[in-house]
């Protein structure tokens, strides 16, 4: 890679890498690829792996709902992550998050070492029943903690509650005039119209709209592309921006807007090209609340 380009990438990547927290920026290598996810059982929770160009990568472990979303067998998975120098887990090179808003919490420990925030995972929309590899427990990989019962342990439940409380936060003071327009971003998995992991932004937007008795709430939805490590651009389906906008507008209608607030919907169907660095940021909808 030419030195100047490398430097530019480094400059762009640095803030994201700092967000991830556990990755040495100088060592970071970004990977984006589509593959069948591989299920590797252990004596505690299963690992999720994926193979790319003859190498095995560790994505994360089975967790409870929320936080990262492990892959689904029967579908390919898009992986966007950063290679770490951590010891291999379940035989795979450990990938970490590129610093996305999908990050919720660490997904566990291996041999006493915290696992990083997992890479961004998108389950591809269509079925692919060739993706069904399940590997049995292998004593070499029995390094994962915590051992767990049928559901979350008490400590984990307490942690979840703590996260929920933190996310809820203290009730903010109502904004004071002069009011300003604010944009709230919701992010999506590739080819998905369901903003499950960032839907709290919708609530923030609607609260703000209510507080300022907004003149309008505008939904602007985008279609993006991912630049894969093999150099190819992978575009989202043609109608994804429209589907995102429609889904979000329906939810807003179900919640209800303040009297007198107009709901506007705009679809940006042109593909936002990927750069292989922060492509997840362009799979989004903006909710613009205007006074």
């Amino acid at each position, binding site marked *: 890679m030419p030195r100047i380009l490398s430097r530019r990438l480094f400059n762009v990547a640095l803030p994201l890498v700092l967000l991830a927290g556990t990755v040495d920026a100088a060592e970071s290598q970004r990977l984006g690829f589509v593959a069948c996810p591989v*299920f590797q*059982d252990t004596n505690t*929770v*299963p690992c*999720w792996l994926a193979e790319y160009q003859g190498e095995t990568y560790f994505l994360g472990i*089975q*967790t*409870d*709902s*929320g*936080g*990262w*979303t*492990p*892959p*689904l*067998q*029967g*579908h390919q998975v898009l992986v966007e992550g950063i290679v770490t120098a951590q010891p291999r887990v379940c035989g795979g090179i450990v990938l970490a998050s590129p610093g996305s808003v999908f990050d919720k919490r660490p997904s566990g420990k291996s041999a006493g070492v915290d696992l990083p925030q997992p890479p961004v995972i998108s389950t591809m*929309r*269509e*079925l692919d029943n060739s993706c069904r590899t*399940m590997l049995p427990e292998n004593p070499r990989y029995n390094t994962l903690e915590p051992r767990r*019962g*049928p*559901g*979350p*342990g*008490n400590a984990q*439940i307490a942690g979840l509650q703590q996260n929920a409380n933190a996310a809820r936060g203290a009730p903010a003071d109502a904004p004071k005039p002069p009011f300003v327009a604010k944009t709230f971003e919701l992010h999506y998995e590739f080819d*998905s*119209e*369901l*903003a*499950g992991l960032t*839907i709290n932004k919708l*609530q923030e937007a609607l609260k703000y709209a209510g507080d300022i008795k907004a003149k309008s709430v505008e939904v602007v939805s985008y279609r993006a592309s991912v630049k894969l490590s093999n150099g190819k651009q992978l575009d989202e*389906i043609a*109608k994804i921006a429209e*589907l995102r906008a429609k*889904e*979000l507008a*329906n*939810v807003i*209608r*179900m*919640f209800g807007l303040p009297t007198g607030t107009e709901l506007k919907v705009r679809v940006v169907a042109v593909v936002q090209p990927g750069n292989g660095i922060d492509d997840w940021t362009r799979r989004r909808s903006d909710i613009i609340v205007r006074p």
Partner: protein
Amino acid sequence: MLLNRGLIRVGLQWPPKPRNGVPTEPEFTIEVVRDPTGCNTDPVYGLNSAKPTVSVYRRPRIAANLKYINYEVGSFNAKRLAMINDRDPFTGKYMSMNIMSDAREPSLRTQAISASHDHLQVKDELTADTLDRIVNFESQIYAAQVDSHTGGSLVEQGGPDGLGPHNLEKQERGLGDNFGTPLFHSFAMWNPAPGETSGQREFRASVARGHDVFFKRPFYISDTTHINTVGMGNPMKRTCATCHNSNMVGTDLSAGWVDVGTTNLPYARVTLDNPWSEEKTELPLFKITCNADARPHTFLGRVIYTQDPGRALISGRCVDVGSIVMGQFRGLAARAPYFSNGSAATLRDLVDFYDRRFNIGYTTQEKEDLTNFLSVL
């Protein structure tokens, strides 16, 4: 169907009614492949009639223990990933959506109104006073098994506090899929209990083992929409209690519609018609074709054959085809057959379904223990 499977016909408007005031646009088309009762192809009542109606056949649900079933929840619903729960129009509160097998009624009041129109064909609207009395009546009923032929009294002093209607009345709703708060508590006192006969001792020990199979024995839960798809991965290594997690009743604490395969092919029980057998197909079969832009059913794709599209007849979503709200695990021994379409004639059939569906590999002893455990709830 009523005699063989305990099923009644439920006729649902197609396309679905608006929800929370917002029109529902179906993501799929429905074709009737097989129609043994003739209702779906009927020119007056069928799918292509002037008032298009889909007829499905379902088990009535138990109207008891309702504080565990019908309750206020937060606005967002994990089963819909980005959508919101339905509100009770009487209170404006978001509700648990666990009352009916397709979650079409958000509260006991709306369910009473709907039943008065559809089942009873009452001409006048129910008054507020009548609705109050219906809801109050339903809300004070607790039902559970109280006696077992082999196991004896299930409500004796010092017995398991996961059993009997009084314990249901005393306890509260909660998440019970973890060691801190197991949903059916403990059966350790039955291992063995003083004063038991030998028959009781053997049976109760089997129940206690069955509880442990239910609560602790992991298997690979796979290809189950609205379980594997809500952030846990497919497959996931968990137990029965992961999905059936609600304290004392074994439903799902979040809105509990799930496609475990009871109505969708290839997992649903089907009767294969043939000239040399007297057993005939009873249930309709529908072909669902998802629109090109729609998110397909996660594990069955864009063309699905189903005996009952379940939640999808209300939400209009492909991903919901075959999803059914879990029923509660109470008074089971008295309420055969099981599953919404009555496809498991006995509790053992029900256990066998799961064993096949998830390739669990239960031993004969485990199956017997699990069956005995379910029979005392």
